[in-house]
């Protein structure tokens, strides 16, 4: 439950100190790579361009969705529309049942987490195997992903060694290479045996009906190539107008996520195998999912969050996320983007208190490849929450405390920054919480090192 955010954060910080260490280390490393990746190109120009393309697409989304659908059909793929999670699950399970699917391999996908697909497939008697190495670790542990990019980045080597020793019979001190090889063996057989591959999509190109997927391991290429049926579950906001737009987005997304010029593997899928020599799937299905996205699109401010390309850069830059990782947030989309997207997708009431889980330091916006004004959107949600009477003081105090733990000793600087970014009105709404934090600061356990120290250590 999202409502337990503050309590869960405290628990993680107090009871699982390894999580903060692992998440902070990994996100600082990612963030540094992102900075390098941006520095190699004219990142400001790329980001403004990407913002413009996404704004254009989102304000012509009806047009591009129809175009993508027509192209996909012409390419021999089948297109399905799902208004909500239940309908999306029904569609996928219907396809699996019709093709007598016994086992499914999956590529890492946030939207299939969002619609709770795995439990539904398992309930229907279908075996589901996550094939991204990090996701595979989490599936064995029965845990949800904690980060968009590194789903298991909150896990230490020791924890994976213990897990694999127990489940895959590897040596208790196996190095990462040995552990990865053991997983590869299990998963290679799974790919060969599977009847269906399920993925998300990074982009869907309207002009060509192309489902584009970025990755580094190759498991998504295998998932979309070996089984006889491929199902791509795609949020309706993933559209791009043309292939030439995709050229820019493939590179910008990779730079934002990991600093790479591009992912090691990109799959561009237009439809089922048609030509001789192609050993790809006989059927390709694209399930277009709304599940709250049209509500976000209709919202006066929050619609900008739909530009998100799920690169994880805002999570990596966020001093609050670094304290706990994604599990504290209680929903599949965590960190800064989760805090602005979840209220739109789930309704503000159900997403409380996430808009308050931020110090408004602005690092997320500076990192974001599509320039989503996350701090402004957080303040908008806070205003709405206040107008709807959704903000009990105690909760706000707890969250302000958590945020300040992450950013101490920058409270004054922070207040100044909020004021300069958002004007007096924004600051006036945000500052009372900081006052309450001062009264109730015993709640979270303070960080022994400040965020700035950690950050410096990470880059020097």
């Amino acid at each position: 439950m999202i409502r337990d955010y503050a309590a869960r954060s405290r628990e993680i910080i107090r009871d699982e100190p390894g999580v903060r260490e692992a998440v902070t280390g990994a996100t600082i490393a990612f963030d540094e790579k992102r900075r390098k990746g941006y520095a190699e190109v004219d990142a400001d120009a790329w980001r403004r361009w990407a913002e413009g393309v996404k704004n254009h697409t989102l304000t012509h989304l009806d047009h591009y969705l129809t175009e993508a659908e027509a192209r996909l059909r012409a390419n021999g793929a089948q297109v399905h529309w799902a208004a909500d999670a239940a309908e999306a699950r029904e569609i996928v399970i219907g396809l699996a049942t019709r093709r007598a699917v016994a086992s499914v391999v999956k590529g890492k996908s946030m939207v299939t987490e969002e619609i709770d697909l795995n439990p539904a497939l398992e309930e229907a008697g279908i075996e589901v195997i996550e094939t991204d190495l990090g996701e595979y670790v989490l599936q064995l542990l029965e845990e949800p992903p904690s980060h968009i990019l590194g789903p298991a980045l909150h896990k230490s080597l020791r924890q994976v060694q213990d897990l694999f020793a127990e489940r895959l019979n590897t040596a208790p001190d196996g190095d990462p290479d040995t552990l990865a090889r053991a997983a590869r063996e299990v998963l290679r057989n799974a790919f060969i045996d599977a009847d269906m591959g399920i993925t998300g999509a990074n982009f869907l190109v309207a002009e060509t009906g192309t489902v584009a997927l970025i990755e580094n391991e190759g498991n998504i290429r295998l998932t979309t190539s070996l089984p006889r049926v491929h199902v791509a579950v795609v949020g309706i906001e993933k559209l791009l107008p043309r292939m030439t737009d995709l050229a820019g987005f493939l590179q910008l997304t990779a730079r934002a996520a990991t600093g790479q010029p591009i992912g090691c593997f990109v799959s561009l899928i237009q439809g089922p195998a048609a030509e001789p020599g192609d050993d790809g799937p006989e059927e390709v299905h694209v399930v277009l999912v709304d599940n709250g996205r049209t509500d976000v699109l209709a919202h006066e401010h929050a619609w900008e969050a739909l530009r998100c390309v799920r690169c994880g850069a805002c999570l990596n830059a966020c001093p609050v996320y670094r304290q706990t990782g994604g599990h504290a947030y209680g929903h599949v989309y965590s960190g800064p983007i989760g805090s602005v997207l979840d209220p739109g997708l789930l309704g503000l009431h159900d997403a409380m208190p996430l808009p308050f889980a931020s110090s408004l330091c602005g690092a997320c916006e500076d990192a974001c490849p599509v320039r989503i004004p996350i701090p402004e959107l957080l303040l908008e949600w806070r205003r709405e929450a206040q107008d709807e009477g959704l903000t009990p003081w105690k909760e706000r105090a707890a969250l302000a405390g958590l945020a300040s733990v992450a950013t101490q000793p920058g409270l004054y600087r922070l207040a100044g920054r909020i004021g300069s970014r958002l004007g007096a009105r924004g600051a006036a709404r945000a500052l009372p919480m900081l006052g309450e934090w001062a009264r109730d600061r015993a709640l979270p356990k303070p960080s022994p090192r400040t965020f700035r120290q950690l950050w410096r250590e990470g880059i020097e």
Partner: protein
Amino acid sequence: MSAGGESSRERILGRVARAAASRGRLSHPGALATPAAADPVSGFVKCFTSSGGEVVQADRGRPANEWLTGFLQALEPGVVGVAVGPEVPAGLRPRLPDVAAAHAGAGISVAWGAVSESGSLILPSTGTRAVQLLPPVHVVWVPEGRVFARMEDALRELLHGLPAAVGLHSGPSKSADIGRTVVTGVHGPGRCMVVFI
């Protein structure tokens, strides 16, 4: 498609159109001008090798297939059986037994083209995906004249005959999911080697 699917389609498109109409339709910013390398081949080599890809020089004094045969046998471990894509012409096929991709020591392909700015190989699905993905080593012949400076140029040209699927390979398979240590060859090939022709 189910009856429910049909109505969901109308519902989603209707809501999207109303949201767009209330906001006003924003224009497209045009093309992203990324710089084009003067020498695409050396740009490709730099980018591809810095992400772990390998570029090998063929001995041009010998027939290409003979050179490749010796090269594969000299790898560690030496290659016994290969899987070769149907697009590979006879003169570029090593003289080693053909085996199923799942059991091959190396997969051999010819790239449709390559991209300098991202260090990517462009591999169409007609080249047989299993050959490109299953063997631990992937050797790719790349025609030197088909290295595009920019991804946009390559994708624009690809539009003229887009196959069912295209893979862009820009280095070996990698993961840092366990203990933040980079390991290669997790699912796809652990070595990705380019030979220019």
